[in-house]
């Protein structure tokens, strides 16, 4: 099981801030997105496939082909606007 987090605009658009997701084996960030979209539908595709959507695995910025394994914390969020 992994934990998936959403922040800011994405949290509002999906109505979810935090969810547990079952994965059968290690998979890439891309694969995880596809799994979430097949479970969630069109809104999820809009958020997760947006060109500038960022992903962090275990609180470190991750790329599309980085691996997600059991127990990981994965976050999806829009470009940051702090400071």
């Amino acid at each position, binding site marked *: 099981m992994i934990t998936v*987090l959403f922040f*800011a605009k994405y949290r509002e658009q999906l109505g979810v801030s935090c969810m547990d997701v079952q994965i059968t084996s290690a998979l890439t960030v891309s694969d995880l997105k596809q799994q979430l979209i097949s479970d969630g539908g069109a809104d999820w595709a809009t958020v997760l496939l947006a060109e500038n959507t960022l992903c962090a695995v275990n*609180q470190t910025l991750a790329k599309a082909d980085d691996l997600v394994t059991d127990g990981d914390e994965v*976050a999806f969020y*829009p470009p*940051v606007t*702090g*400071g």
Partner: protein
Amino acid sequence: MQRRVSIQEADFDVGKECRGLAKSSRCGAVTQFVGVMRDYNEGDDIVAMELEHYPGMTERSIESIIDRAAQRWSLLSVTVIHRVGALLPGAQIVFVGVGAMHRQAAFAACEFIMDFLKSEAPFWKKERRADGAERWVDARASDTQALDRWSSDD
């Protein structure tokens, strides 16, 4: 090097932070940046703001930025404070302070940390306009461009 990172709802005291940065007897220069909430953005009057962050990752991200600055310049102390939660116009949002022996390092590191904080640290601003509408602030291309100068050699 003395390092302090704080994500907090409470306001901060710039004078106190400055004294903390200058504690080392070798410290000759303290540079400080304070980001302040404006009442105007992208053509609209703004009456309030909500700052969201990713607890845990925010601190890690800022610590990583500070480490990179400390590898690049000789620094004695760095403090980064970022507020979260509800803020009103005129409020202090962010503090970046750097103490060093010499001013060139203090200036460069302070701007470097601020530039990377703007583009890497997971914070998001939501503004409330005078007409009651709310909107998530869009990232600015100029903040990404600001990083370019740090990738060339000094």
